[in-house]
């Protein structure tokens, strides 16, 4: 789908390769017990962010200055037919950080996520305006090859959706269609590496030829993550990746998100505010198609600036 009205926005910063921040130091598994008992006496936001892996504040750039964002959206609006689902959203997504999109159902957070790899193209009535850039390259232009875009911006869906193929073939799917491996050995290496990174290798290494759909829900979702990282993307989009999973599988996925944070820019849509607090460093709160507030996760949950954000995270609606 072509963008009908493109916002005349010029790149604000010259293209520079984003500096990778070593994140290995922060691979501390989050503690979930803390979240079970929010402080009920506190009338203020009850989401506990104290266990956030300590990113040195100095290494986290300010929201609007400092290093270049991996992706940036400017004034993005989405229409489904006549209905406007998203209104003028501008946001920046950084390398090495997990950005969480939260908000009540129907607030447009998934719609926005699907703009970032142009999955909205698959919906015939959807129309996107505004500008979205990946490394300062406009991805909304008609000259953008969505095949290459989606190889660079991977996606994990709400419901695990492994293909009805073997575990090996599921992971090998992307490398095959993008020609990433020249021979079988290379392909096997990619598959093993991806499964290892997704934390699934030890569980499936002896049964790679079994069907991917035979795995448990949590394993399927990690298989989908392995499938996404097999093409070595720069950004991974996750659309409520844990909403169909049980708490233990959810914990594994969250742990995995922590481990992946050093390599990829990650954007995650979640309904679960505790999850947003646990896994993300940036949080964007959407409501009624608008981006209400965007900032450091710790600030959003402890000291939101907007009344609507306060209401949402204290559970007044949503």
């Amino acid at each position: 789908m072509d963008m009908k009205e493109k916002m005349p926005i010029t790149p604000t910063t010259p293209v520079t390769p984003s500096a990778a921040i070593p994140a290995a130091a922060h691979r501390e598994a989050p503690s979930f017990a803390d979240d079970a008992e929010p402080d009920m006496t506190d009338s203020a936001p009850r989401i506990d962010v104290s266990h956030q892996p300590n990113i040195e504040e100095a290494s986290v750039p300010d929201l609007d200055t400092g290093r270049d964002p991996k992706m940036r959206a400017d004034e993005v609006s989405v229409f489904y037919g006549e209905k406007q689902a998203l209104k003028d959203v501008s946001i920046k997504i950084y390398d090495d950080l997990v950005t969480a999109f939260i908000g009540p159902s129907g607030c447009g957070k998934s719609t926005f996520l699907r703009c970032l790899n142009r999955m909205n193209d698959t919906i015939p009535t959807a129309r996107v305006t505004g500008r979205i850039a990946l490394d300062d390259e406009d991805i909304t232009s008609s000259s953008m090859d969505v095949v290459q875009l989606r190889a660079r911006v991977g996606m994990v869906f709400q419901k695990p959706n492994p293909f009805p193929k073997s575990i090996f073939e599921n992971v090998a799917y992307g490398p095959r269609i993008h020609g990433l491996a020249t021979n079988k050995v290379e392909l096997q290496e990619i598959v093993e590496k991806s499964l290892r990174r997704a934390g699934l290798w030890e569980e499936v290494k002896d049964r790679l030829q079994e069907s991917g759909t035979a795995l448990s829900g949590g394993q399927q979702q990690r298989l989908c993550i392995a499938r996404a990282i097999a093409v070595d993307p720069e950004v991974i989009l996750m659309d409520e990746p844990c909403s169909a999973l049980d708490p233990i599988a959810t914990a594994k996925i969250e742990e995995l998100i922590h481990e992946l944070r050093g390599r990829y820019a990650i954007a995650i849509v979640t309904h679960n505010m505790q999850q947003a607090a646990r896994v993300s460093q940036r949080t964007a709160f959407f409501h009624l198609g608008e981006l209400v507030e965007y900032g450091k996760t710790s600030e959003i949950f402890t000291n939101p600036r907007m009344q609507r954000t306060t209401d949402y995270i204290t559970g007044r609606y949503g």
Partner: protein
Amino acid sequence: MSLGLAFVAILAVALAAAWLGYARARRLRASSGSRLHSLPVYHGAHAALWAAIPALLLIAAWAPMQSRLVDQTVLSSPEGKALPAFEMQRESILSEAREIAHGDREAGFNPESTTLAPRIRAAEQRYALFGGLIAIAVALATAAFAVRRSNPQFRARTGVERWVMGLLFAASLIAILTTLGILLSLMFESLRFFRLYPVQSFLFGLEWSPQTALRADQAGSSGAFGSVPLMWGTFFIGAIIAMVVAVPLGLMSAIYLTQYAHARVRAWLKPILEILAGIPTVVYGYFAALTVAPAVRDFGLAIGVSSASSESALAAGSVMGVMIIPFVSSMSDDSIAAVPQAMRDGSLAMGATKSETIRKVLLPAALPGVMGGILLAVSRAIGETMIVVMAAGLAANLTANPFASVTTVTTQIVQLLTGDQEFDSAKTLAAFALGLALFLITLLLNLIALHIVRKYQEQYE
């Protein structure tokens, strides 16, 4: 009084019972002041069902019994005893007499039938009156029983529900019993055939030449009933040539319609494709015989096939393939549409193109359903008659040359059973054996196909 009249009378009784039951229930509600267990409508329906169904069942059971009773009475009368003892002769006189009695014919060929006719008429009237009166009496009795049973606590609604369930069950039973009946009748005739001709020669014989000799010294009547050439011809036309045409075209049109076509294009194309399914097969037959067959023959001769026949397997098979396209297309359409959107999204999000997604994800996932659809299409194609009767040949050749003439099971059945036939010759009975074989093969194909389709549907539920 005929049984037809009794039928009408029973319906009238049922109607009256419905009204009585309804009125009585309303009165009960008014007088007792409390709520009835069931609405008055159910009380009425309950009474009507009780009045109608047992009596109608009685009539249905009485009708065949009556004709036997009539025959018995007539044969035991003096005129009946005078009839010739030879079974066939007696039967023909009796059936003539029956026709005279019913006014279908003025006078019989046999003088005896004319004298028998009044006997038959009298006996029929007597028994019909007897049966009809009994049925009406039963209707009245059951209606009275049902109407009198109603009181405020009476559960008329559950009673009606039970009757309705019984009716539905009976309806489904009829289809099953009919299938069973067809199978049994085929089997009995086939058994008669196999008494005349050995089973193994029928199943494995390579020669089909059903001309049986009327006299022992007649020439050119081998009477060979080897079904292999027919089975091969059927398979060649219906399962090979037709599918070579129908599967790619049907599958590709399904892919286009579900994946590529704009909604507006789809809204036009799909009904047009479905029109193909509505064309009478005899019209396809003309088309195959008059248009396609000569073209195929000319093409065959042009490319140097000297044996190209104007009744080629290719002509019949390709037209049959075209006929099956909508069938394959709609089955494939359903299977592809049943693959979850999540699967498609997953592939597209990996950066796969539309055609990669279709080839590597959608089709493999839809394959079992498509296979089931193809098997159903095959079983339709091999049972198809009109096209092959008109366009395929009669020569039972065992050849894989598509330009040559082959014959099929259905064509041969038509050949064996058209015209005057004697039902004790192997030639006629062979048709039933062929029919049985065809029935069993299509039954098997359908069972396999349904099994595959069902298994496939469970996969995504």
